[in-house]
C-alpha cells in the first residue's frame, strides 16, 4: 500500500486514495480530503462524518447510505445534497474509511 503526504503527515492509502489505517485519520485531515473532492465541510457534513467514524469503531465496517439514514438519522436525500452524486464513496473517503460493502 502506498504512503502519501497529506496535511503534513504520512498516511497509508489504497490505489483509489482511500485511507487504509483507521488511526491515520484526524479531523484536520478530513478537511483536506474533503477539499480534494470539492466539498466544504459544514456542521451537517460533520454529523455524517462523526457518525461514520463512531459506527466503524463499533461495527468494524463502513455504514452504508441506508444505515447512515436508519441509524445515523441523516436521510438519503440529504446525503446526496451534502455529498453529490456518490455519497457512499465520498463520505467514506472523507471519513478515512473503506468504501461501504454491498459492492460485491
Amino acid at each position, binding site marked *: 500500500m502506498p504512503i502519501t503526504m497529506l496535511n503534513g503527515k504520512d498516511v497509508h492509502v489504497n490505489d483509489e*486514495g482511500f485511507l487504509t489505517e483507521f488511526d491515520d485519520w484526524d479531523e484536520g485531515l478530513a478537511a483536506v480530503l474533503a477539499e*480534494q473532492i470539492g466539498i466544504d465541510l459544514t456542521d451537517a457534513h460533520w454529523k455524517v462524518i462523526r457518525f461514520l467514524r463512531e459506527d466503524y469503531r463499533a461495527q468494524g465496517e463502513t455504514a452504508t447510505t441506508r444505515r447512515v439514514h436508519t441509524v445515523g438519522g441523516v436521510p438519503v436525500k440529504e446525503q446526496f445534497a451534502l455529498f453529490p452524486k456518490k455519497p457512499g464513496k465520498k463520505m467514506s473517503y472523507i471519513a478515512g474509511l473503506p468504501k461501504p460493502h454491498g*459492492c*460485491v
Partner: protein
Amino acid sequence: MQRLLVLGAGTAGTMVVNRLRSKLPVSEWTITVVDADDTHYYQPGFLFLPFGAYRPEQVVRPRRQSIKAGIELVTAEVDRVDPTADRVQLVGGRVLEYDYLVIATGTSPRPDQTPGMAEALWHESIHEFYTYEGAMALREKLRTWPGGRLVVHVTEMPIKCPVAPLEFTFLADAFFRENGLRDRVDITYVTPLEGAFTKPVSSAHLGDMLNKRGIGLEPDFVVERIDTDTSALVSYDEREVPFDLLVTVPVNMGADFVARSGLGDDLNYVHVDKQTFQSEKFDNIFALGDASDIPASKAGSVAHFAMDVFERNFLSLVRGEPMRAEFDGHANCFIESGRGKGMLIDFNYVTEPLPGTYPLPTVGPFSLLRETRVNHWGKLFFRWIYWNVLLPGRQLPVPARMSMAGKRHDAPAAPTPIAAKD
C-alpha cells in the same frame, strides 16, 4: 439425542441437511428442516422464463423430493427464534427446540420498499424476474410488447445473483434482434453502481459488452421513487429515467423473522463471521447462503463452496474441537450473454474476477470473462448438476477454494483516485 434445526429448504438449506445427514449418526442426531411451502425452484432458470427459453416445469420440483431419508421436513412459517432459550416458534403455535440452528432463509425481492413500484403499474409496465410469478408475468408481457423504452434497473445492492440483471439485458437484446424488433426498442441499464458491475476489470468488460450492443448505461443512480403518472424512475439527486417497460430488481431483504428475533442488520441479514458463518452473539447459531451478511456474492455457487467449509467446521465443533476451516468468499458465476454464448467469472473476497481459463490453466474448458459457446453449454448443463449433484450434497470436481491457476492479471490501468473524479 442432539438436535440440528435448519430454517429454509432452498439451495443452502437443502445442501446442508443432505450433507450432514450422511455424517451425523441417526442414532445420535435428529435433523429437521422448516420451510413455508413444498416448492423448490431452480432460481437460475427464472432468467430464461421471460424469453420462453425454459418451460415452467423445468424449474420446479417438490422440496421433499430433494431431501434425503432421515430428515424431517416441516411445512410452516417461522414466527421467531428465541436464541437465549434455543427455541423456534412457528406460526400456528408449534415450538421446535434445537441444540444447533442454521438459518438459511435466503433473501427476497421487496418491491414494497420503493414508493410507486408495487402500485398501479406493477405487472403492467413494471416487472421483475426474481420470482416464478414475476418471471411468468414478464413472459406474458414480452409476448405482445410492441417495443419502446426498456429500462433494466437495479434498486440497491446487495442483490441475489448480481450478474442476473446484466444477463437479462443481454438476453433481451438478443430476443428483440431475433424477433426483428431491436430497432424499435431502446434499452438502458440503470444501476446504483459506478459502472456496469462491481470490480474494475469485469466492470470494464461488461460495460464494453453493453456499449457494443447499443445499450445505454446510467450509473450512480439511486432510485428514490417511481413516478407512476409519468412512468419514470426518479433518483435522490433528481435525475429521471422514463420507461415504457421497466424490469427492475427490487430491494433485496432477508426474512422478516430474522428482524423479529433480533438477529438481523438493517436488511434482515444475520451477522456472522465471514470465515465460519457462526453468529458472533450465539455460538450455536449459523447462517448459510443468502441469509448471512458475509461480504460475498449472494449466489448458489457461494453457498456450495461455503458448504465444504461449514461441514468440516461443524463436525469439529460437535466433537469439541476448534473450527479451523476458513471460507475465502469463493464465487463462480456463468453470465449468459445471448446468441448461444456465455461468460464465466471466478473470484473471492480478495481477488476480483479476472480473465483466463477455468478450472484448468490453458485447457479450461471454460473461459473467464470471455464469451464462448462452451460457457453457454456449461450454464445450461448446470441445471442438471443443480438437481443431481449440488442439492443431494455430492461433491463437484472443482476445489472449494478459489485458485489463481489459469487466471491472468492483465494489469488494467489503475483506478483513478477519487480526488480526480467529479
